[in-house]
């Protein structure tokens, strides 16, 4: 690769949107490189769809510019932008059949012989048989594929997807996620995907931007976001985190030693996003699946150098591959622990005294000035 094609780059510079006194999107800078699968993740009303609509040209930004490659498209109407959108609930034309829906963009650009292209595209999304049906005769999943085909056939530089899987049931959604990922790899177009489903964002995207209240909280690869959340919102919104308030005791080598409930916890300095001064507070975070549970009677067998907390099991639910425990501890009322069902210890039942322990390397530190529950409720709302 001697020449890098950047015509599919999307660059947002200081782009923001206000409606009267309400700020939907705070000015933000974002670069999505050509050919990547980028997800904007956030709860409803966080500004992710507004951001997408500003890229599509359906919404005029209040400030900032939108560049596609080297072209400034900020003030171009949608029909002049080389981007296409897969709309939430698809917005298929009800009076046109599937073939004409897919051919719509080609015909508008004055292309006469559309038959071959449309048939190929319908083949790609496995709808060759349905060409002469009307949209309302198709199932939700099929309509969704028509919407993707209708957008992709124009070979846009960027494909925008606005919660395209929101109306599908869970099983179909999982299937379509893999399908979309396959299509993206096949056509190599930049995809920008808006979703509130963190699992969807993590399985599909190369890069995820987590948005909250009109701002990008954190941007990175799914692994990076999951392992190194920088804010409590990200820690709670992406998966589940145990957050424990602790006081900074000393710093030694590359580690920070903290005091929590009489115990001692070690946190690698590199994994702490908060300024840690002796005597100050930080939030110690640990993912539930990183914690091991040992019955209090066997506490002596736990290797040295691991972070440990004592507690009592209050609830245990068996969910097949793992068992999810809720543990009450002096430092935190409810600690979640997920244990793989490899060798189950029969003594780990509600009421049992246990020691929770984990490798310090899995610990992360967050600024204690934040709301410890940020992002928690929203996840529950979406799940309901």
């Amino acid at each position, binding site marked *: 690769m001697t020449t890098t094609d950047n015509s599919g780059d999307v660059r947002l510079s200081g782009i923001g949107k206000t409606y009267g006194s309400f700020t939907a999107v705070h000015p933000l800078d974002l670069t999505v490189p050509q050919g990547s699968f980028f997800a904007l993740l956030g709860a409803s009303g966080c500004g992710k769809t507004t951001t997408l609509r500003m890229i*599509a*040209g*359906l919404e005029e930004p209040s400030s900032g510019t939108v560049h596609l490659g080297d072209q400034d498209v900020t003030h171009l*109407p*949608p*029909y002049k932008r080389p*981007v*296409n*959108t897969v*709309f939430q*609930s698809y*917005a*298929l*034309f*009800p*009076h046109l059949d599937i073939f004409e829906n897919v051919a*719509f*963009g080609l015909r*508008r*650009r004055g292309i006469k012989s559309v038959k071959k292209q449309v048939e190929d595209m319908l083949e790609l999304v496995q709808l060759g048989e349905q060409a002469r049906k*009307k949209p*309302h005769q198709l199932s939700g999943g099929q309509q969704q594929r028509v919407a993707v085909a*209708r*957008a992709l056939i*124009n070979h846009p530089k960027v494909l925008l997807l606005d919660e395209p899987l929101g109306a599908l049931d869970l099983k179909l959604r999982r299937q379509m996620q893999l399908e979309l990922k396959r299509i993206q790899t096949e056509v190599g177009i930049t995809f920008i995907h808006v979703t509130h489903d963190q699992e969807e964002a993590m399985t599909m995207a190369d890069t995820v931007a987590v948005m909250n209240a009109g701002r990008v909280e954190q941007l990175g690869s799914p692994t990076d976001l999951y392992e190194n959340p920088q804010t409590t919102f990200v820690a709670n919104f992406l998966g589940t985190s145990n957050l424990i308030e602790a006081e900074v005791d000393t710093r030694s080598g590359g580690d920070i030693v903290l005091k929590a409930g009489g115990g001692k916890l070690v946190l690698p300095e590199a994994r702490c996003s908060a300024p840690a001064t002796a005597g100050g507070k930080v939030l110690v975070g640990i993912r539930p699946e990183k914690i091991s549970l040992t019955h209090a009677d066997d506490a002596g067998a736990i290797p040295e150098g691991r972070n440990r907390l004592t507690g009592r099991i209050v609830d245990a639910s068996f969910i097949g591959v793992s068992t999810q425990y809720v543990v009450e501890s002096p430092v935190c009322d409810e600690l979640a622990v997920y244990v793989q069902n490899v060798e189950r210890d029969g003594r780990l039942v509600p009421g049992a005294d246990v020691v929770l322990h984990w490798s310090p390397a899995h610990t992360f530190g967050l600024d204690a000035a934040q709301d410890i529950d940020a992002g928690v409720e929203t996840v529950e709302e979406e799940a309901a």
Partner: protein
Amino acid sequence: MSTLTEAPPPLVSAEPAKKPPRKRGRFTPYWLLLPGILWLVVFFALPMIYQASTSVQTGSLEEGYKVTWHFATYWDALSEYWPQFLRSVFYAASATVLCLLLGYPLAYLIAFRAGRWRNLIMILVIAPFFTSFLIRTLAWKTILADNGPVVHTLNTLHILDLTSALGWTAGDRVLATPLAVVCGLTYNFLPFMILPLYTSLERIDGRLHEAAGDLYARPWTTFRKVTFPLSMPGVVSGTLLTFIPATGDYVNSELLGSTDTRMIGNVIQTQFLRILDYPTAAALSFILMAAILAMVTIYIRRSGTEDLV
């Protein structure tokens, strides 16, 4: 075994308690239909039968009319009054087209652009109904008066020369010409065009416009390829609601027209109320009804709106 023999009693005792409401429920739809059906029978079906029998009667006012199955009345009526039939269809069609041209942009504006003015504009559309049909039509007599400002302006701009050449007006007046009748019809039936148009435009999902724009359609193309086809149900019902009553209308011709602009409605009215030739009047009514039914059927078939969601 013992459980089997014990189980039935509650079932038996439950049955009689369940039955009465089901029996009553079965007849509810018919009771609900009854008032409407009675109304239709008394005020529609019976008069129709009575009129049908009138149309095949012969006789005179003095000697009384008798059913003689004289179908020739139909032929006589048609051969004598076909120009009025054609004129009615032509006037009604012209008024319908004018209503569509005037009403569509307004309905579009109310549906998509009016914002908080929407309700006010809707009230303005319906407002004429608060005054009598007759008074509104008489007002047009004043508007189009020979020495009024409208005719004066049209004369100054030499527009009347053009319309006179086309046969729509006569000399330098508008009143008592086809143009005046068509104007009156258009004015009186405009709300019947706007309301169904508005209803079907308002139902169009705004995201379809966005989707069309996103797929490279300019605003005008979006209108032609998406908005207009989707508003076809409104266009069809609006044109029907305008065309059908306009064809049979006689008030506009009576008040704004002259003997040269008589429509079939005027003929029927005269036959019934002045000449008192009931068989001819009844036959004309049936011919008009059949003609409208035939035209409407062809129109609905051709427009293919049953295919739209």
